[in-house]
Structure formats: structure tokens, C-alpha cells
């Protein structure tokens, strides 16, 4: 009961901070938009990595697909995309008025999400039969190949990237994208919290704990894994669409399919916060994002070296994560894991 109350308080507090964000930290609004998106990245990575036990280096593929799909939809509704990218998106010929911009965005983000989900379903059916590190390495290959392919494809601007549609001056895009990012983070969190409380949540946890046994019990493990990956890809795709518009420029390797940075960061955020927990990725994303911004500000030039060192330190010395550590340290306050609670519930109910 107490734990539930604490959960409600934490959610309400986060919600209030999120909604009042533009008044609380007006100067750092776009950084906070990115923070909400990073929370989405960490949550969706944890859905497959932490809850299902399949560690993917390649979730960034869906992020990038969503980004490009949203941008191409936004442009393609009104102008030929090839001409737009060839002109580097700039100039006076490609003007979007407010209605066009909103329509493009309203269509582009779902399209991004759906295309990413489709890609996840197709790829998942092929590679989710592999287990453990083979899956991890296969996804690493996918992530880098996707970047190289996007960098060679003229239609979406090849190596010189793509500019997202410039909105008319009347729209306050910082505020718009802030609330979009916040809403996406809230929806993702709510959806995953619900998902983990269903039978499906238990089914994917069973895959993590002992896949052979789960299969012997009659679970369609591969199908469940594909569904899981598809769900996480959908949210990642939408997040990518927002991120592309937020950055205003999509570079194939440095922004969209950045396997060596964003692709690793999402893993790191989930591990830092605590793999396989609902709150872990949220906390991990917040802590990591602040650390990263500090690195970028104070260690200019050496920030990436420091980040590499941080990866090693977190993974080697702190693999249980913040939430995992809290549970170990104060079991009476942060309590038994969800599995134990459910076991207790089952006993009480019977």
C-alpha cells in the first residue's frame, strides 16, 4: 500500500514538473525535451533488454527510421522529396504554412512510428530466433549497416543529410516539441506500466528467466519477442520523428543511425537506472543525461573519451543499477521485486 502511494506521488510529481516545465526552466526547454525523449529511449530499450532479456545494440535503427519517415512524410505531402533534399531543404521555394506544418507533423509522427514497428516486425521474425550475444552482435551489424545505407541513398539526401521542414515564425516550436516529447514519455511510461502488469508482461519475463522452460510451457516465445520488439520500435519511431524535428537537421550517421552514441546511450541509461525495472530507465535517463550535458560542457573535446570510460565503469562496477542497488540496500523500503509481490498476491488471493 505504502509502495503504491509512493509510486503515485512520484508519478504526480513528475507530471506536474513536466506540465509546468516551460515556467520552471524556460531557458533549457529544448534540453528538457531531449531528456523526455531519452527517457522514452531508455524505457523502450528496457522493454526488450531488461524485461525480455534480449540485449539489442540496434534499437537505434527504429529511431532513425522514424526520424526519416516522419521528415519524408512532412515534406512529401506538399513537395517532391527528391527536389527538396537536392536543394538541401533551404531556399524560398519550400515554404510550409502553419496548417501544412501541423498536418505534416500529425501525419508524419504516426507514420514514423508505424514504419519503425513494421521494420521491427520484419527484422524480428528473422533475427529474434538467435539468442544471447548472437542477437546482440546481429543488431550491432544492423545499426551500422542502416547508417551506411542511409548515407548512400540520394532520395533522402545521402551523406549530406536532410533538413526537416521549417515551420512559419508564428509557431513556438520549442514549446510545441517540449509538450510533444513530454506527452510521448508519459504515454510510453503509462503503456509500459500497464503492459508489465498483464499476462503478456509475465510471459516476456518468463523468456528472460528461462526461455526453454517458457517454450516448454507452451508460450510462443519467438512471437512474443517479435511483438515486444515491435511495440518498442513504435515508440522509438515516434521519438525519432520528434527528435528529428527538434534537431532541425538529420544527418544519417551522426543523428539518425548513431549506433556508437545514441544506440549505446540507451543501453547505458537502462543499466545505470536498473535493468528490468519500471522506474530504472527513467532514473537512469535523468542521471545519465545530466552527466552527459556536464561532460559536453566541461570536458570539451574529451567528452567522448570520458563517456567511453563511463560505460566501462558503469558496466563493470555497477551492473545492478541505481534501482537494483536501492533494493539491495533497503529491501524494506524499496521492497521485494514485482515477481515476489505477485507471488504474495497469488497466495493471498487463493
Amino acid at each position, binding site marked *: 500500500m505504502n509502495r503504491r502511494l509512493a509510486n503515485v506521488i512520484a508519478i504526480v510529481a513528475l507530471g506536474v514538473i513536466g506540465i509546468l516545465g516551460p515556467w520552471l526552466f524556460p531557458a533549457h526547454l529544448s534540453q528538457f525535451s531531449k531528456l523526455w525523449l531519452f527517457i522514452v529511449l531508455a524505457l523502450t530499450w528496457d522493454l526488450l533488454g531488461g524485461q525480455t532479456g534480449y*540485449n539489442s545494440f540496434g534499437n537505434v535503427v527504429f529511431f532513425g527510421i522514424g526520424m526519416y519517415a516522419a521528415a519524408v512524410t512532412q515534406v512529401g505531402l506538399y513537395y517532391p522529396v527528391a527536389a527538396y533534399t537536392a536543394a538541401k531543404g533551404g531556399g524560398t521555394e519550400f515554404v510550409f504554412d502553419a496548417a501544412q506544418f501541423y498536418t505534416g507533423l500529425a501525419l508524419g509522427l504516426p507514420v514514423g512510428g508505424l514504419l519503425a514497428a513494421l521494420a521491427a516486425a520484419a527484422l524480428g521474425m*528473422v*533475427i529474434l*530466433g*538467435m*539468442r*544471447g*550475444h*548472437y542477437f*546482440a*552482435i*546481429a543488431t*550491432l*551489424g*544492423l545499426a*551500422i*549497416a542502416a547508417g*551506411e*545505407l542511409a*548515407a*548512400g541513398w540520394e532520395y533522402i539526401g545521402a*551523406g549530406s543529410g536532410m533538413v526537416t521542414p521549417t515551420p512559419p515564425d508564428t509557431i513556438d516550436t520549442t514549446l510545441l516539441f517540449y509538450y510533444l516529447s513530454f506527452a510521448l514519455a508519459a504515454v510510453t511510461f503509462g503503456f509500459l506500466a500497464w503492459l508489465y502488469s498483464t499476462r503478456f508482461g509475465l510471459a516476456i519475463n518468463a523468456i528472460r528467466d528461462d526461455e526453454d522452460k517458457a517454450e516448454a510451457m507452451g508460450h510462443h516465445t519467438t512471437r512474443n519477442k517479435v511483438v515486444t520488439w515491435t511495440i518498442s520500435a513504435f515508440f522509438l519511431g515516434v521519438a525519432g520523428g520528434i527528435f528529428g524535428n527538434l534537431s532541425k537537421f538529420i544527418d544519417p550517421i551522426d543523428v539518425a543511425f548513431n549506433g*556508437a552514441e545514441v544506440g*549505446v546511450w540507451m*543501453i547505458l541509461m537502462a*543499466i545505470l537506472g536498473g535493468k528490468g525495472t519500471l522506474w530504472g530507465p527513467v532514473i537512469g535517463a535523468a542521471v545519465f543525461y545530466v552527466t552527459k550535458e556536464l561532460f559536453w560542457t566541461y570536458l570539451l*573535446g*574529451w567528452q*567522448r*573519451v570520458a*563517456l*567511453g*570510460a*563511463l*560505460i*566501462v565503469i558503469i*558496466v*563493470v*562496477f555497477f*551492473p545492478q543499477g541505481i534501482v537494483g542497488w536501492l533494493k539491495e540496500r533497503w529491501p524494506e523500503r524499496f521492497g521485494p521485486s514485482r515477481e515476489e509481490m505477485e507471488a504474495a498476491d497469488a497466495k493471498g488471493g487463493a
Partner: protein
Amino acid sequence: MDNLNLLIQAPILNVQLLLDGLWIGAIFALAAFGMALVWGVMNIINVAQGEFVMLGGFITLMIVEAGLSPLFGIPVAAVVLFVLGWLLYRVIIWRIVDADMFISLLATFGISIMMQQLMNEIFGSDVRTAESGLGMFYLFDNMVTVSQIKVLAFVLAFVIGLALWMFLKRSRLGQAIRATSQNPRAARILGIDTDRVYAATYAINAALCGAAGALVVMAYSIHPYVGLPYTVRSFMIVIMAGLGNLGGVIAAGLGLGAAEQFAGFLLGAEYQLAFVFLLLVVVLVWRQMMLARRRQYLK
């Protein structure tokens, strides 16, 4: 696919591509040999493999800048990387030998990011190469050119690989390494210090990659971000050949080198890397499908 017609009309081009592929393939096989060693003995997939190659290249560049022949780079790079590998083991790797494989993947990935960014800060991101001063062979009425340094690198790669093979077969430490890979617990009972064996294995792998990197910088080129493709190639070769199959590693390495040359020629050089990474996925999927027929899976 214009280039396909070119290949059919001028078959001599095939010879050129095949030879180019074989020369570089030997170096791939060398790095893959090291990866198979660490994988088999310590159960770690070393993602920093390519970065060791890259470091070996930069050490050789420093040798050349000091006015020496790049050939000196091979032993120097091997020794420096041996020490670095030993240090890395003592600081980081020993903590993750028994950990979950994903932990070791991620930790070595962190090491690889750290090394490539460090080299980027120190040397800049330019593509560099060490001039060897060797000339060309001309074959088939000057239709096929073979640069002598590539042939030399090819031969040296084989010599280094064979030397390591003999070392593993004959020497006391080599036998200890093989015993540990077969059964670490039994090896410990029989008085082998497996911790030292692991350290030596990781250091030998680093040294091997360092030597490979010296060959790469002499015959080809190097830059701070060249590592990951070498890691992926090594991984691909190992899963194609299987652990502990030296003949398979050589065949897969040479085959991969040739396949890459043809793909680069047919699809365009900008897609050559994409081809390598997609080939990795294809190889994995193919292995998976073969195993699925026997109700097994890759794990």
C-alpha cells in the same frame, strides 16, 4: 550494375579483384585468429579487437615518423600492445571473465569507444598510411597490378599466424592456454594459474592485432574509426569457421576479403562497409536457419 558487364567483358579484372581480396583477407584472418583465441579461452567477445589493430597502425606510424622502416613497426607494435593488453586485463577484463556475456560485450565496447576517441584527439581523424617505398609487380601484360607491400603483408600475416599456432601447440604456456580453454576447473586443479593464463591470452591477442595493424598501415591505410569494421569482420570469420578451426579461419578470411573487393567494385565503394555489416547479419541468419532445421539455435 554497369560494372558487372565490365567484369564479364574483361575477365582479367576478376583476377585483379580476387588477388586484392586475398592480400587483405590474410590480415582479416590474423585478427580473427586472435578473436577466436580470446573467445575460446576466456568466453569473451572482444569488441575492442579492431581498436588494437588501429593502435598497432598508429604505433607503426610513429616509428616511421622517427625515421625507421615501417617493418620495425611490427615487433614494436606487438610488444606495446602486449603490455597494453596485459594492463587492460589486470584493470578491467579480469572482473568480467565470469560475468554474463553481454556485460563483457558492453565493457569491451566501452574500451573500444575510449580508444578510438583518444586516438582521434591525439592524432586527428585523417586517413593515414606509412610509405614503404616498395614498388609494383605487373602481371598479364600490365593488366593486373600487384603492389609488393601487399604481398609482403600477406606473407608476413601467414608467418605471424603460423608462429602463434606453433607457440600454442608446443610451448608450455601455449599448452596451458589450450588446457584452460578445454576445462578451466581441471586446469586449476592441475596447478595452472588460470588468471595468468587469461592475462597472457588477452595480451597475446592484443599483440597479434598490433602486428596486424602494422601490416594494415603499411599496405593500406588507417584512421581512428577504422576499428569496428575489423571487429565485425573478425567476428564474422570466427562464426563462419567455428572456434579452434585454423584452416576454416584462413579460408573464411580470404573468402571475406575477396567478397568485399567484388562487392565494393559492383556496388560502389560507398556501400562496401554496408555490405560488410549486412553480410554479418546474413551469415548469422543463415547459421540460425541451418540450426533451426535441427531444432537448435545460436546461443
